[in-house]
């Protein structure tokens, strides 16, 4: 269950790119809160600013204006960003693009230990990598000496999740983790995400363009359009009585079979 304490708190948060006439606000005056152990979905069409917003939560992009607090302190309060990344981690959309093609998968999973000021012993690192692989149903010998291009898309996406099992962060930013895999793998990925949430009591920010998916997984949904949060609320409120035309458009865009489910299915 979500708790009452706040994980993220954003006040009039904006991020602009470019100068002068070409200046464009990717995120425009966003104000929101995300509670601990809550699953929040950022939903919107391509280019609506959801990834930029996610990157600001990850401390990979700096806000141009406004305030972003993480657990009550400005997100850049610690000089060493690794402190933030030990607590907040991410899964990306395209696992092939997320791994360096020049290094073996295993060495890149082990690279996650860079985040710790004191790295565990070689044996402990190997053991933790093995455990993480088993947690996502991959036998460690299967990826021994393999490179990213030698694995399937579903396997690669699970490698990104294995990284999370290694790091065990408290907050996870999942940027469209299911949009590049087939329907079967998608169910698997969602299952692992839920397993992570249960095991680690995680806060999850789920970025997606699929409002149907967001309906199933989230406690709250934020609808983004042209950098602004045009609507936020519980999945039922957002899908049953949308106030913004953007939300209605997103709901209209899901295939009809799917839409019937939203009307009928009791929420898990």
């Amino acid at each position: 269950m979500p708790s009452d304490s706040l994980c993220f708190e954003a006040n009039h948060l904006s991020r602009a790119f470019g100068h002068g006439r070409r200046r464009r606000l990717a995120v425009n005056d966003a104000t929101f809160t995300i509670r601990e152990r809550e699953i929040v979905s950022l939903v919107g069409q391509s280019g609506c600013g959801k990834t930029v917003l996610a990157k600001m939560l990850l401390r990979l992009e700096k806000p141009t204006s406004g305030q972003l607090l993480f657990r009550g302190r400005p997100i850049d309060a610690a000089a060493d960003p690794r402190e933030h990344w030990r607590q907040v981690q991410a899964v990306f959309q395209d696992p092939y693009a997320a791994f360096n093609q020049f290094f073996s998968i295993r060495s890149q999973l082990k690279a996650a230990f860079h985040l710790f000021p004191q790295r565990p012993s070689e044996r402990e690192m190997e053991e933790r990598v093995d455990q993480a692989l088993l947690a996502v149903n991959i036998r460690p010998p299967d990826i021994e000496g393999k490179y990213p291009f030698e694995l399937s898309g579903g396997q690669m996406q699970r490698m990104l999740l294995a990284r999370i099992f290694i790091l065990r962060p408290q907050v996870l930013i999942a940027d469209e983790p299911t949009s590049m895999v087939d329907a079967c793998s998608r169910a698997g990925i969602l299952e692992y995400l839920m397993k992570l949430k249960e095991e680690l009591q995680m806060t999850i920010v789920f970025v997606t363009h699929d409002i149907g998916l967001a309906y199933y997984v989230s406690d709250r949904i934020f609808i983004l359009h042209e950098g602004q949060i045009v609507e936020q609320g519980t999945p039922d409120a957002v899908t049953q009585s949308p106030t913004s035309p953007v939300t209605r458009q997103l709901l209209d865009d899901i295939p009809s079979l799917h839409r019937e489910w939203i009307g009928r299915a009791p929420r898990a």
Partner: protein
Amino acid sequence: MKLIRHLLRTPGFLVGATLLGLTLAIAFLPPLVMSLDAYQRVGLAYLPPTAEHWLGTDHLGIDMVALLVAGLRSSLYVGFLAGIIATTLGTLIGVYGGYKGGLIDDLLTACTNLFLVIPSLIVLILLSGSLQEGRSLTLIAVFIGCTTWTWTARAVRAQASSLRSRDHVALARINGYGTLGIVFLHILPYLLSYLFMVFILQTASGILSESVISMLGLGPYDSISLGNLLNQAIRNEALSDGAWWAFFPPMVLITVIAFALYVINTSMEGIFNPRLRK
């Protein structure tokens, strides 16, 4: 591996590689099988080609084959050294600016543009001309490298700044890697094939630049280079004496090396850049 096999099937690459192999053979094989001394007079001035001296003699009566071999070695040395310097400088400046972005990038780009608009050949001529003594092959190569890195920097900067927004760089950052780690492990490997092509092109232009300044009489004092041979031929009236063997072979060699390197570069671009592959 597949790329290399593809490359070996490209006619342009094969032509370039064969020509380059031939010039390298001319530079390094003859001293192993015959005695060549580029400082020893073997006959009268401007002797035409004979069975003993295949390309005749120069204005001092030195065997032209010996001079060509020595000159070719120096030219290759200058070219490779200038290529290494220009590629390294340009890559470091470009990658750092492109990855860092912001003010550092703006400053480095401004600096690069400043160097880019200064005509490098004129700077080279002025630099070489201002040095009365101690103009060595190495120094000339350093001059060339230091004046031609600019476009490498620009091209690499563009590539690096597009790579920095890729997911694998974001993942490296949230893995806790610093700027150096990211640049060396996560950006440079992606640029390797490109940098190799840049290096080949910089080497070719290094060889050409050296020939130009040597031909103008501003080359190294202490060694023989292909440009130097041309300069000597012009100054000692090889043209009016009809001694074609004094200037034609060095000219052919310069042309062949530059042509071979350019052809290799173009054919590699066709392989490494899939959009150009037919």
